[in-house]
């Protein structure tokens, strides 16, 4: 929108508004209520509900304010008898086929149609014709559908198309017989549930929450997703200590993710109150023996003694402390403090799939926020697969391309689904992402790199040209494929591409909700990586203190590593492959039970808030660590308060300085950590190192031409998603019931035959 200002007159008051502003937004902004169903900012216009009618002088008929761009001198009336009569009639038509069954509708109590009917509806129906009848059904394990309640605003079809790029749900039929549905009646899609979220009526409903609670019984707590690094804000609905459902925090597009969530964030929560949650601390007094329930005091005392004994016998460096990218900043900070100030070991790390330390150490440009991505002009994606691993980032990319005309350049060895939106797809041989970065680092490397990658050299020069012709923001994203030298070069790329009219922003794509936070808290600064620690068990590493579990990829090929330890203490929610070897298991509280912060891949520091009391005897991770420190003679001074831990983080970690919980209160204006932007670095040694790496790469790799299936990562069964029966259906290929009408009165349960191997990913 331009900065030019024009004058409009609304209800006899003059307002100055930016040129290009939409009338409905302006009216609402100025405090005039405009009813609407189909208008949804940042989605294509529909103009089908006609609730947003206004009178504009010199225009015939009433006008839909959602389609009108303000012009200078426009005179608008938003309320009059004429307008009200039109709106009341529109609503009467919308209700003509509606079953009016609010008492048994899951949306009742938070339904836009219900609210609107209170304000604009008649006292009785005048239509006596028979209503269209259609049975309730499931469209997928996640999406329940009651077609009769639909008002055909088509928000669902637009979000599915524009946000998800799926086009999975559409309007079929015609006129009064139009229904929202899908070919064959069964949804094979990414199951994000955004169609459910944006539906203003009870037509599309959360299939996992059918008839479980009424919205007014739920306590709503704003928190942050505990799955991927995009850090969506969400609202946890709980009742009597049970987490009942998760919806997005915000109506419309304010804040970080608006109404967007993906399948994991929205439906992946039943692990919280799952019956398999650990109930008490457990101690295995004898190797090979059983884990026996113990009191907290006993477990803490036992752990402290064992750690002390190991340190006394082998020195403090024989103790490893392992944090996790899944737990809060507070928890990782406490672990870091425990490792460095209590134990005094240099061996500490976090169980992440890869470390972003080389990237942050050489950071040459600010991190892009998701809003920046939405309005970027050019997006370069090196490796990664955001549509499966960071779905909000993928949504922002899609919208940048289709609603913002951004150019997307994808460098990948597989034609990922986002390629469909790409202006340029550089299809490289597998494992060649480092070579691509080497070529970007200096144009003289292009010919050799292109040969290695199996592409034409002019593909790289075209990429370079697109970037250097961009006016506006260029966002460079990268996945976990890059090695340390390549991360350093990407972090410094801004220096070669920025210009007066061009900003370069960076966007790393780590895998977990607090990957960035675990790095910020210093957990990546230890002398050994997690893999190295596991390789050293039984020799230089004698005891491990682990919050969370090791990732399957860490334990793969190292099945014996944990058995070689003298002592292993683990914080966990469930019994896992790691607790199988533990001498002490300490029940940790999940994200729904604690206060804290996560830092997402934008560097946004976001609040995690307690929605329910800790289940059974679980405790927040940082509290367990502080108790252990106290037992070992060090008072952390946290006084049982997460905000005190965060205050200390803000005092000690420069990027977080000045932050306090109250500063993070307003989710509409998320706060970004202030990372140090370094002076331009000399990259010659990194480039040299990469040159060696590239030279050693095989140059006969086969490029894959198969686009990966939707959900191949999203629906994976991890230790948490394992607890959600619907994920098993999806992971088994979303089998279509022979017939698709599933009685809505029953929840979907899973046939035991469908259960697949658990713990494929680290969730």
């Amino acid at each position, binding site marked *: 929108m331009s900065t030019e200002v024009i004058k409009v007159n609304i209800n006899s008051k003059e307002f100055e508004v930016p040129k290009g502003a939409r009338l409905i937004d302006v009216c609402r902004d100025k405090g005039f209520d405009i009813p609407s169903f189909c208008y949804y900012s940042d989605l294509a216009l529909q103009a089908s509900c006609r609730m947003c009618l206004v009178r504009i002088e010199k225009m015939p008929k009433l006008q839909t304010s959602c389609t009108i761009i303000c012009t200078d001198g426009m005179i608008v009336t938003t309320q009059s008898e004429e307008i009200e009569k039109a709106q009341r009639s529109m609503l009467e038509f919308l209700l003509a086929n509606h079953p009016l069954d609010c008492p048994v509708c899951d949306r009742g109590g938070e339904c836009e149609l219900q609210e609107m009917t209170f304000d604009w509806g008649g006292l009785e129906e005048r239509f006596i014709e028979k209503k269209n009848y259609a049975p309730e059904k499931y469209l997928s394990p996640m999406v329940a559908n009651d077609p009769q309640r639909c008002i055909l605003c088509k928000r669902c079809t637009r979000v599915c198309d524009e946000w998800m790029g799926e086009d999975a749900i559409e309007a079929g039929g*015609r006129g009064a017989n139009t229904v929202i549905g899908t070919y064959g009646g069964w949804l094979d899609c990414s199951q994000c549930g955004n169609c459910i979220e944006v539906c203003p009526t009870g037509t599309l409903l959360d299939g996992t929450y059918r008839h479980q609670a009424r919205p007014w019984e739920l306590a709503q707590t704003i928190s942050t997703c505990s799955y991927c690094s995009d850090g969506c804000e969400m609202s946890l609905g709980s009742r009597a200590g049970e987490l009942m459902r998760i919806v997005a925090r915000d109506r419309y597009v304010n804040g970080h993710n608006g109404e967007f969530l993906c399948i994991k964030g929205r439906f992946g929560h039943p692990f919280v109150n799952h019956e398999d949650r650990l109930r008490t601390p457990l101690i295995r007094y004898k190797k090979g023996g059983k884990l026996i329930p113990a009191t907290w005091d006993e477990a803490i005392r036992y752990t402290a003694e064992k750690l002390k004994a190991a340190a006394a016998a082998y020195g403090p460096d024989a103790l490893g402390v392992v944090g996790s990218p899944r737990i809060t900043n507070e928890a990782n900070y406490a672990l870091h403090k425990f490792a460095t100030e209590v134990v005094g070991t240099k061996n500490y790390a976090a169980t992440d799939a890869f470390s972003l330390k080389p990237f942050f150490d050489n950071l040459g440009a600010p991190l892009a926020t998701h809003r920046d991505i939405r309005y970027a002009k050019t997006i370069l994606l090196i490796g990664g697969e955001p549509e499966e691993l960071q779905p909000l980032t993928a949504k922002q990319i899609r919208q940048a391309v289709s609603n913002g005309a951004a150019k997307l350049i994808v460098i990948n060895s597989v034609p990922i689904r986002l390629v469909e939106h790409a202006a340029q797809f550089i299809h490289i041989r597998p494992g060649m992402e480092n070579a691509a970065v080497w070529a970007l680092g200096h144009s003289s490397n292009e010919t050799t790199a292109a040969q290695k990658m199996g592409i034409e050299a002019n593909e790289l020069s075209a990429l370079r040209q697109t970037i250097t012709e961009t006016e506006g923001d260029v966002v460079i994203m990268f996945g976990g494929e890059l090695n340390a030298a390549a991360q350093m070069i990407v972090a410094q790329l801004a220096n070669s591409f920025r210009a007066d009219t061009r900003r370069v922003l960076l966007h790393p794509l780590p895998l977990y909700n607090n990957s960035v936070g675990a790095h910020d808290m210093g957990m990546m600064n230890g002398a050994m990586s997690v893999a190295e620690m596991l390789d050293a068990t039984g020799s230089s590493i004698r005891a491990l203190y682990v919050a969370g579990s090791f990732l399957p990829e860490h334990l793969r090929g190292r099945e014996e590593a944990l058995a070689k330890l003298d002592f292993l203490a683990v914080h966990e929610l469930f019994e896992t492959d790691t607790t199988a070897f533990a001498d002490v298991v300490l029940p940790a509280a999940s994200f729904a039970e604690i206060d804290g912060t996560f830092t997402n891949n934008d560097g946004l520091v976001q609040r995690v808030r307690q929605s329910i009391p800790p289940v059974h005897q679980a405790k927040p991770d940082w509290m367990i660590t502080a108790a252990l420190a106290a037992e070992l003679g060090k008072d952390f001074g946290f006084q049982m308060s997460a905000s005190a831990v965060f205050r200390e983080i803000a005092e000690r970690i420069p990027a977080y300085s000045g932050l306090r919980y109250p500063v993070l209160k307003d989710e509409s204006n998320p706060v970004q950590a202030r990372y140090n932007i370094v002076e331009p670095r000399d990259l010659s040694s990194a480039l040299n190192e990469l040159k060696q790496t590239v030279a050693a790469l095989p140059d006969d790799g086969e490029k894959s031409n198969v686009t990966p299936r939707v959900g191949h990562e999203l629906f994976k069964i991890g230790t948490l998603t394992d607890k959600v029966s619907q994920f098993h259906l999806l992971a088994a290929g979303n089998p279509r019931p022979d*017939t698709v009408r599933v009685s809505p009165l029953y*929840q979907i*349960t899973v046939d035991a035959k469908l259960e697949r191997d658990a713990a494929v990913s680290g969730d």
Partner: protein
Amino acid sequence: MSTQPIQIQPLSQPVNIGDEVASFSPEVEAEIDGHLAKYPVMRSAILPLMFIVQRERGYLDAPGVAYLAKRLRLRITDIWEVATFYSMIYTQPVGKYHIQICKTLSCKIMGEPGITDHVCNKLGIRLGETTADGKFTVSLVECLGSCGTAPMFQIGFDYHENLTTEKVDQILDGLK
């Protein structure tokens, strides 16, 4: 959270989407290519292509839909959306003679309900159904632009106007 087993009731017309994609003779493919060449935006060719697939396969069956999605680079649901909008595109098999009775205002006033009842009774089927021998299908459609000669129906692409029950008998008896 208590959960109970899935309860499944039969659905009248389950659509099975297999992996099969329809294939056509080189002549038909050439005809399709001809249509595709006409439009700068590929998806604009959706209707002509649908008519061809329907002509070749009787109706838009699952392999036909899969073919259209592939040729037009659209999702199957996009095809479904368009196919279900038009009454002249069939998503279910139809009989040899498809009787489409106009139900819009002029025809309605001039006696469409009586004609419809007569056709249905005569053939022993309800609206939307096909006779057991696969010969006739009856459905109601919107205005066919022949209001001056209402009531009327079309069988295939042929108009039959100023209908009376006697005339209907004559027409149907003449169809073998």
